[in-house]
């Protein structure tokens, strides 16, 4: 068809070739993931070992003043810190291979339990924030791109730059004071109403407690998605096939919906999936402001206080998540833009 010729889109190649390619892709992906994990583990451990922070001092904190050197030596022995670093790393790696991530020093619980508990809380927060920022960022980006140079575009662009430069922590506090303290529309803290026991809170209550932290966290992701989508939209709007459609008499709304959306979605999807890592960073602050107990807080504690087993556990878990995020981003991009299927396959 005419449009296919203009945009260079062709049908995907034959099935057998695609299957072979897919198997190869999966195998190389698994290999990359494994080497990534080893690199992350070795790198994190090396960095932590080189850090000047003394884990025992960090654990005892202000308590150091009242503990005798004998007591501090006891703590060191309980954590096995009296062994040389290489011995500790090898012992840890051996356990990990057999499926045991070790015990968190500061929480006194298995690392897997800590991560599972915390991630369960973080998941809904991050998922909602991710959805917010994706939908809003993309929608507004298309709107800005389609109305390029007009007031709507200028306001949106200005807003995006403001958000990009506003610290998450500050935005969180602002939202907290406006909506929770002054207007009292939203709760001031926690994942459930104050005083409720686990499992008592209804789904609505949970959502209600989720909304401010999620809004805060989504702020991190909106601007990049918005600005990139705007750029992509502008490019598509200037392309020949849009000119062709316009010449055929299609109006702005139809043009955007039928000719632009899918083309502009590529970069937005890529960005959105690649931003999983940034969500982690942002969730630390959002969780702190709203006392929302997630993985972010555990990560800060593990890093600040040199809880090596927990820190390594979280580092590897995050690496897997980011890797999966990027892989999904690739797939989604390919789905949105058939040209890429050809190029990679």
């Amino acid at each position, binding site marked *: 068809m005419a449009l296919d010729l203009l945009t260079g889109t062709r049908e995907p190649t034959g099935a057998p070739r695609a299957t072979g390619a897919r198997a190869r892709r999966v195998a190389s992906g698994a290999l990359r993931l494994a080497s990534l994990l080893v690199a992350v583990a070795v790198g994190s451990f090396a960095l932590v070992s080189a850090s000047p922070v003394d884990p025992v001092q960090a654990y005892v904190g*202000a308590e150091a*003043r009242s503990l005798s050197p004998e007591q501090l030596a006891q703590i060191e022995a309980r*954590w096995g810190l009296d062994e040389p670093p290489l011995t500790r790393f090898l012992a840890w790696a051996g356990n990990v291979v057999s499926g045991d991530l070790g015990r968190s020093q500061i*929480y006194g619980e298995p690392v897997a339990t800590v991560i599972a508990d915390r991630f369960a809380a973080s998941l809904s927060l991050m998922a*909602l924030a991710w959805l917010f920022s994706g939908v809003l960022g993309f929608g507004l980006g298309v709107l800005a791109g389609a109305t390029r140079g007009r007031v709507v575009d200028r306001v949106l662009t200005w807003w995006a730059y403001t958000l990009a430069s506003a610290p998450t922590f500050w935005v969180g506090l602002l939202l907290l004071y406006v909506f929770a303290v002054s207007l009292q529309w939203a709760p*001031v803290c*926690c994942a459930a109403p*104050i*005083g409720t026991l686990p499992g008592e809170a*209804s789904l609505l209550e949970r959502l209600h407690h989720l909304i401010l932290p999620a809004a805060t966290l989504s702020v991190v992701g909106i601007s990049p998605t918005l600005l990139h989508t705007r750029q992509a939209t502008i490019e598509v709007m200037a392309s020949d096939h849009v000119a062709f459609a316009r010449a055929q008499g299609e109006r702005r709304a139809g043009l955007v919906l039928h000719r632009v959306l899918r083309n502009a979605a590529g970069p937005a999807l890529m960005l959105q999936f690649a931003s999983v890592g940034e969500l982690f960073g942002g969730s630390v602050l959002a969780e702190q402001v709203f006392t929302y107990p997630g993985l972010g807080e555990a990560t800060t504690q593990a890093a600040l206080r040199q809880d090596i087993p927990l820190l390594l556990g979280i580092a590897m878990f995050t690496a897997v998540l980011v890797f999966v995020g990027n892989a999904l981003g690739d797939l989604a991009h390919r789905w949105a833009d058939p040209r890429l299927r050809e190029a990679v396959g």
Partner: protein
Amino acid sequence: MLRRPARPRRVARTLAALAVAVTLAAGCGGTVDERSDGGGSVPTELTLAVGGEPDDGFDPTLGWGRYGSPLFQSTLLKRAADLSLTHDLATDYRVSADGLTWTVDIRTDAVFSDGQPVTAEDVAYTFNTAAQQGGLTDVTALERATAVDQDTVEMRLVEPRSTFVNRLVSLGIVPEHAHSADYAQHPVGSGPFELVSWEKGQQMVVQRNDDYYGELPSFERLVFLFTDEDATLAAARAGQVDVASVPSAMATGSIAGMRLEAVPSIDNRGIAFPTVPDEGRTTEAGLPIGNDVTADLAIREAVSRAIDRQQLVDGVLEGFGSPATGPVDGTPWHEPAAAVDDADPDAAIALLEEAGWVDTDGDGVREKDGVRAEFTLLYPASDTLRQGLALSVVDMAKPVGISIRAEGVSWEEIDRRLHVDAVVFGWGSHDPTEMYNLYHSAQAGIELWNPGFYADATVDAHLDAALAARDEETANREWRAAQLDEHGGGFTGDHPWAWLVNLDHTYFVDECLDLGELQTEPHGHGWPITAGIQSWRWTC
């Protein structure tokens, strides 16, 4: 070609619907459980945001309950509001003539929340376990605890140690039969409350233990919120908490329905001076020792007398504090006569002149034998309070001809330079062992104790005598003598430390809640307020 965009449109529509649903949900879920304040009915539940969440759970043998109330467990002894000792699980205790054996009688009517009685075996088990565990409570003085009979425990110490009594005060007794690996998450004890649920990093719900042998608390349920400073203040402003611990810098506004309670504490701040000259000596770890300027008593005393402590309280602490007269203000072992006459620059100048510190070149800084009266005062850069104190001290010392350079550095750097430069430290404990550590010559250069290498035979003798004392009264007398004895000895006159201020810990408390008589709190703001939680009453 028109078929293609159909799918994205459907996705977009679904997402839009979802967003609307979420927004609606937020709109109607908007009722937060609000107690009817002043509505006449007495609440059975309190919500507290006073921090204090332990990372590793509620196991006293690992350090839970060092401050304030262990809540779920009970201790052998307790400190009353005036910090004097009273009985709790123990009915009596005796120390042997050699000071090595402590015999404790325990009450027989106490039961754990699982119904089992509290026995001497449990007490012995608790102390022996705590002594061997690498936790945050230091029971290394204990050699062995044994149960003599059902209600008597004998504890043998490594050496005589009067301060061991503080372990009897702070160590909550755990049941031997239920002290399993997950005890810290599911504590069982004989305290006034039982744990209902603990959502880490968020909140903890506890309920009254109706089998408690002591005075029953008047509230059935307590909710502890583990919010950070900003969220705590927000929760207080939104009327959702009854007690909120806030840093004094944030305690300046007022909150409707709440009063501001400023609780005195021995959470103090003071300056440690190197007291020995720089003779090229180093510590075992290779750190340099000594400062030629602060090694001169006249300099240290002049600084201490030139400082206007009341002005520090008003200016830096916004009034939430008191001038410090020593390291242990407000405790039974404090010697009030040891206070320094301060805010007296003239006296400071006279001292310096007499000692030969004269400003010969007219630059405003005195010299002696070619050495300028000049030294560095370190403070942790992250601590704005200590920064404020350090800078104020610089201004107060300048008129008397002493030039101090205040320098904000990391703790790691302080650890390296604390024997050659003056440092602003913070201390304050219900355990006088701290005073021993700060002033005894044997503790010089160990941890952060006695960083200035102060050594005085009389002071050492008093401190040793206090530690070896067999009863509280003798011990307190010796602790006081270490500060200032009847012959004018004691560390006060040597000024190895210039104590500056004691902080007040600030709390917003519901106007209807009476907290009873409050203890002078130790270093650590927040949880210590729970020490008298059983006597809290609702007054509206």
